[in-house]
């Protein structure tokens, strides 16, 4: 990361053409380095969009909550705690897998990565159970604003998670087919970061539900 964007903006002088670095027009636009950087930038941009979407829902949540007296806190089904644990563990597994790959331990990578994928599926199953339990207790999407937001936020998160699982599953398949060459490293990293992001968002949502119902 020779010249950063900030020094680029501040300096405004093109760096000598030989330096390799971040953006700034000094890299090789066609090279693999540029491809990797672009993928990571793309991911960051995607995360920014997701954050904005959850931020929009959250601000609607607080506005709506303060608005009138029909808000009845939704009781959190206990299974959500299990789900939280599973998702955090899954995030951990992904990180172990990524590190294993970077130090060339393919077998360990496969184990950790598939474990993470399965845990992701378990989380989704667990979320489904949580929705079922809430329904059984008489809480539906339209029951009251709190339950509305609960379902909207958890479903939005689940849709994101489906995307994440597809990415993880794709890597699993590539790994099984022994196609995880250096070119796929970026895909591995990007999927892993996205997965961590989903765990972080989930922890945020749990805090939201816990403290503000």
């Amino acid at each position, binding site marked *: 990361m020779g*010249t950063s*964007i900030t020094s*680029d*903006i501040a*300096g*405004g*002088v*093109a*760096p000598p*053409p030989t330096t390799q670095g*971040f*953006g*700034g*027009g*000094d*890299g*090789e*636009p*066609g*090279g*693999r380095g*540029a*491809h990797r*950087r*672009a*993928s990571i*930038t*793309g991911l960051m*941009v*995607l995360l*920014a*969009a*997701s954050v*904005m*979407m959850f*931020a*929009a*829902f959250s*601000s*609607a949540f607080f*506005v*709506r909550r303060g*608005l*009138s*007296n*029909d*808000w009845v806190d939704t009781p959190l089904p206990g299974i959500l705690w299990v789900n939280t644990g599973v998702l955090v563990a899954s995030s951990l597994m992904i990180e172990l897998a990524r590190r294993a790959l970077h130090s060339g331990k393919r077998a360990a990578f496969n184990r950790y990565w598939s474990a993470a994928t399965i845990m992701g599926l378990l989380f989704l199953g667990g979320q489904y159970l949580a929705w079922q339990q809430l329904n059984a207790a008489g809480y539906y*999407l*339209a029951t009251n*604003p709190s339950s*509305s937001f609960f379902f*909207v936020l958890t479903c*939005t998160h689940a849709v994101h998670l489906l995307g994440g699982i597809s990415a993880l599953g794709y890597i699993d398949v590539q790994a099984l087919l022994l196609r995880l060459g250096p*070119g796929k490293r970026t895909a591995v990293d990007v999927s892993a970061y996205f997965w961590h992001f989903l765990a972080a968002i989930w922890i945020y949502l749990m805090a939201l539900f816990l403290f503000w119902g």
Partner: protein
Amino acid sequence: MSSPVVAAHGAPKGFIRRYIFSLDHKVIGIQYYFLAVFSVFLGMALSVLMRFHLVYPDAKVSLFEKLWPTGAPGGIMTPELYLSLMTMHGTIMVFFVLTTAPQSGFGNYFLPIQIGAEDMAFPVLNMLSFWTTFLALVVMVAAFFVPGGAPLSGWTAYPPLSAVGQLSGPGEGLGQTFWIISIAIFCGASLMGAINFIATTIDLRARGLSLMRMPLTCWSWLVTAILGLLGFAVLLAAGVLLLLDRLAGTSFFLPAGLLVNDQILNHKGGSPLLWQHLFWFFGHPEVYIAILPGMGVASQLLSTFSRKPIFGYRAMVYAILGIGFLGFFVWGHHMFMSGMNPYSAFAFSVLTMSIGVPSAIKTFNWIGTLWGGRIRFTTAMLFALGFVSLFVTGGISGIFLGQPALDLYFHDTYFVVGHFHMIMGVAAIFGMFAGTFYWFPKVTGRFMNETLGKIHFYLTFLGVYAIFTPMHYLGISGNPRRYADFTNFDFLGKLLPIHTFMTHAAFFTAAVQLIFVFNLFWSIKKGKPAPMNPWDATTLEWTVPSPPPHDNFAGKHPVVNHGPYEYSVPGAARDFIMQSDPA
């Protein structure tokens, strides 16, 4: 040198891969452009119908009855039909024209070439984003054909009207549902586009092309993408909530005890203002999404055709960034009438005024660029000058609207309609015309016809001022907006001749656009052949053949040694130095 970013796709052979599901940013840019051309004519046709109805509300037109059997029984347009035309006009223009052509159309085609890349960073995503936009357009147009027809709630879709369903009017059933779904799809498409624009600009620039050597077009595309990214994510969230209010019985936006057509609704506790906040948090940045690319094109052209460097390049960049940043803090100026706390109104007003500063910087720099230049009055340049004129005219009325005390009066009058048509409607469209005339030789290898172009420019320029200037006067006189018929109000009686004049001006201006259409298609085949760099311009797209080859630079990687606006440099051999000329 291997280049996986783009070598991911070599030049495709079959027709379908080449022209339909193409991964080539240039083809995708053209696809976006023509999607917008289709939309702009659809939107214009709707506006002509609206203007017709406003001055001849009792006219019996059998065509109307054929098109809308329930909307125009006996050939007379109902107010509901009028509102549905208005909604679709605004929606199609804002989303499928102003958000689509300047950014996704021109940007897709020229951003990669101007920064010396072989393609966008993610070509497959790029293709997906075009076809998703296309799907959104199909769903939007389909709203005309569902039972009840198109929705009535305007491009801003304010609840309760947009949330209570069929009960509140014919188009508010399936039509409104289609509208929301279409916009949600459009949000997805725009997010994909934004990811591509941002990653491409940050990571794929050619050697030597530092950010501060980027043409202002690239800067404006970058900032527009960031605005789209943050704005459309919020609109998507809002759309989901609105859809749930309609279909799932939730109460995000609907208050208790709502009485619609003699029926009390079941909802309780929600607030329509919540929608307004979410919508305008997107909506204000959206107006800059529409105008920023036009500003980029205007800057580019004013410099090129004045044979002078852009005045204050750095200030221009900071102004673009400033406008983009401030644009997220002013949404409340659309809600002065909502009963907001006067202190908040004051804060929003001050922030709104502060956007005037970077806007004025841009305007002065454009004039500074022209000052003392050896101006070449090509059609492209005329449209760029027209852009500046319209931007100033529209911006000045914005200063009035930004004062809460004045806006309480102006809100929901024709003054607002005049304001946003000048600045967003016409200025942005002039930016598109300018870009079309300027880049046509690169895309096709031929010029557009200059004589036809100039006739089209002058007639359009007169036409749009004739349509939209009187609107300010109407607004000051208290003429409300979003009404289908003004003939039954005593206090508006004196204003009717002005309406008649505007309607005739609208017919005239719409007819004049046929000159452009003819010129566009005729020149593709018959235009005068153009050399590689017909305007003596400096940026990288003028270093490659017209049209550019599949990977733009034929496998070579351009190296940039110069800034984008080195015109009339003392001591240089020619009056311009290209960005890729030796240092």
